[in-house]
């Protein structure tokens, strides 16, 4: 059985028993998922990476806090979400903006103009960039839900536990977020 076949719960159990290699496997498994999730809050790639580092530090120092009552991924996402929300509150108080707010591969990204005719066939790459831009323009509440559902492919129930909101609220925010995305991407009769 390869390391990638081992479940999260087995890995955390092994780490709790002192196996640091299991910790490394958890980090490799979740680091990119978490940075995408956290970036949805802070919109800053460097800050997002720091927060993910902090998340794993908390995992390292508080590994015995995890109990098999909930899924390990839910627990880990909850830690990351709490750190991200705290940072977001600090950022809002300071109201400063960072140059590194763009993602690494988008630092030279130029937003497409709206003068593209409806008849022009959009490349897949262009569509993805537009979705990404529209996603970044969503309110934080909607954006994080969409990321968890459509990018991280988590269930409604898991999202409800991670974000600590009722299931009905999760469904409502995902629906409204998608409607808003569709509205942002569809202008003057242009279709995606």
């Amino acid at each position, binding site marked *: 059985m390869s390391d990638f076949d081992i479940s999260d719960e087995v890995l955390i159990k092994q780490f709790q028993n002192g196996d640091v290699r299991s910790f490394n496997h958890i980090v490799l498994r979740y680091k990119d998922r978490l940075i995408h999730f956290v*970036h949805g809050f802070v919109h800053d790639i460097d800050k997002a990476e720091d927060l993910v580092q902090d998340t794993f530090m908390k995992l390292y120092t508080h590994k015995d806090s995890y109990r098999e009552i909930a899924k390990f991924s839910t627990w880990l996402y909850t830690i990351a979400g709490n750190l991200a929300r705290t940072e977001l509150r600090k950022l809002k108080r300071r109201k400063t903006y960072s140059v590194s707010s763009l993602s690494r591969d988008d630092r030279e990204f130029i937003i497409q103009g709206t003068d593209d005719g409806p008849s022009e066939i959009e490349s897949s790459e262009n569509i993805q960039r537009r979705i990404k831009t529209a996603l970044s323009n969503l309110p934080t509440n909607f954006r994080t839900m969409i990321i968890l559902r459509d990018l991280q492919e988590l269930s409604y129930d898991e999202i409800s536990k991670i974000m600590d909101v009722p299931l009905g609220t999760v469904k409502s925010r995902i*629906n409204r977020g998608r409607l808003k995305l569709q509205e942002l991407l569809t202008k003057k009769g242009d279709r995606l």
Partner: protein
Amino acid sequence: MNCYKFENHISEYIDGELKMGVRKGFVTHKLDCILCKEKLEGIIAIVKEMPNIARIQTSGDFLNKLHQKIESYENRSPLKMGRIFGFDYASAVGLAAAMVLVVSASYLLVTEDSVPIVDLDKISTRNGHMTQEPQITVSNPNSYIADQDSSDKNNEENQFNMPIRLVGGSK
């Protein structure tokens, strides 16, 4: 089903969570309303494209940086006392010092040998009641009164003859 309700159920339909009772009305409205149908198709296209958008990734040396932080954390205290009864070293020492102070203060306040007991009832004059009438005499009352006139003399003398006693000492 109207357009407003249709819109509210779009995500449930896409995610396969639409209840059977609502599904029929939803599908019927989709067939009847072109605008709602286009809206639904637009959202389905977005949701399908989502997993393909460029994902943000951590930097190449993420794991190394994390291990450096862990190493700093592990080496932060030369004593490496870890935890004492669940408390970290500094908190445990502070708690122990506080307990010693409380115990010492309690010992000093309650002992009978080191501090005389002060009986507040016996020295209180609030009700004008005195349990005893201690005597105090002054050899020359007039020496304490420099500028008073004779009309006050009696009152002053009475005051000097008023019994006063400090109650204290061991029983």
